[in-house]
């Protein structure tokens, strides 16, 4: 149960933030790196997809898309009735946990590579698939019992967000380009988009540490219920992901990645979408839980644990 040293960059960022160091990474670097990471994993997946029997993705995709919904639904119920949260916050947080985190996924792939456990880059297809459905569900949950209810949702805007939101667009765009380019076309892009990946991820984790430090420092304000939720939920979701992965006969590596996707909470697509679609939800709570608790939890405890567990289980 070892963790990849790359997570230490996150720790360094957190320390800098908590210590009120003058280290500041400009927001544009954050933007540029997140575009890079999304494109890079999209491309890599697309290249692998070009050698892959696409039909084989159908059954897993449907299975995963169906089963994942258990996460936002149970999260909503737990928060709404267990945690006595208002429906907006419960729905918003549920959406974050139902969706996925690109960086958590990336760290899991890096950690598998470090441990020399094989996995398929095609898993990025599921990353792309899982990003939005839970967000849509979250929006619907937030409207239950509201005047107008689900019918008042502006589906046009939301659907637009689903397909043309930055992260989906770059993931799918990268996938498509990788698919067309194939191994041959990818070769000349590899120095930047493949070799450079881990270094860029390190830099990005440093920056995320700075951003997350404020959320981590404020953890008391989230209340003990949410803090416990933000650590128990990913573990439960990961186990659920492993069950699904077993049904689908995934390899150890792919099992770890699916578990990580289920366990991870969105901190890019979901916050932006919920801020617009469910303005009454308090973003401090959802981002605090996902970025301030779950993200570091997954990095330092979750991913090593899911790796260990999958290796026990699948063998």
């Amino acid at each position, binding site marked *: 149960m070892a963790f990849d040293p790359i997570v230490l960059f996150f720790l360094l960022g957190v320390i800098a933030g908590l210590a009120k160091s003058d280290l*500041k990474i400009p*927001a544009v670097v*954050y933007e540029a790196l997140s575009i890079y990471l999304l494109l890079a994993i999209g491309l890599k997946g697309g290249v692998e997809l070009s050698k892959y029997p696409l039909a084989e993705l159908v059954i897993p995709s449907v299975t995963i898309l169906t089963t994942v919904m258990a996460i936002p639904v149970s999260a909503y119920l737990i928060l709404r009735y267990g945690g006595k949260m208002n429906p907006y916050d419960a729905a918003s947080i549920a959406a974050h946990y139902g969706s996925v985190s690109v960086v958590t996924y990336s760290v899991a792939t890096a950690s598998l590579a470090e441990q020399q456990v094989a996995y398929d880059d095609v898993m990025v297809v599921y990353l792309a698939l899982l990003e939005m459905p839970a967000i849509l569900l979250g929006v619907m949950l937030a409207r239950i019992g509201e005047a107008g209810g689900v019918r008042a949702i502006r589906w046009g805007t939301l659907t637009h967000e689903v397909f043309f939101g930055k992260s989906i667009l770059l993931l799918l765009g990268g996938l498509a380009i990788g698919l067309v380019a194939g191994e041959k076309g990818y070769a000349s892009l590899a120095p930047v988009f493949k070799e450079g990946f881990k270094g860029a991820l390190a830099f990005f984790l440093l920056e995320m540490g700075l951003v997350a430090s404020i959320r981590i420092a404020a953890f008391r304000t989230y209340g003990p219920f949410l803090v416990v939720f933000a650590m128990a939920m990913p573990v439960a979701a990961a186990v659920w992901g492993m069950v699904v992965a077993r049904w689908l006969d995934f390899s150890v590596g792919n099992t770890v990645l699916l578990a990580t996707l289920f366990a991870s909470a969105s901190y890019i697509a979901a916050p932006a979408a919920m801020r617009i679609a469910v303005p009454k939800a308090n973003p401090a709570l959802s981002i605090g839980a996902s970025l301030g608790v779950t993200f570091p939890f997954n990095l330092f405890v979750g991913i090593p644990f899911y790796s260990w567990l999958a290796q026990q289980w699948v063998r």
Partner: protein
Amino acid sequence: MKRFKLVTIICEAVLEDMIVKELDRLGIVGYTVSECRGRGTHGVRTGNWRLSTNVRIEVMVDEATSVAVRDALMRFDDDYGLLMFRSEVEVLN
């Protein structure tokens, strides 16, 4: 030199598109946007990623329109970090 009102709106970056749509609806062509950060009743906005960035939107309009802008944007006031103020300016060109 004609007198106008300069309406300055400081708010979460995520509101920009929605505010521009309101300006369109009011038939306002001209506006200026710049990036900023700050602190208010909604806490510190550090500007270190998009979700914690503010924008400043400035609209130079006549008095009546300035009231219309205010009225159109008040619906964001409850749920978002938002500050709106108005000052006197003379256009020079």
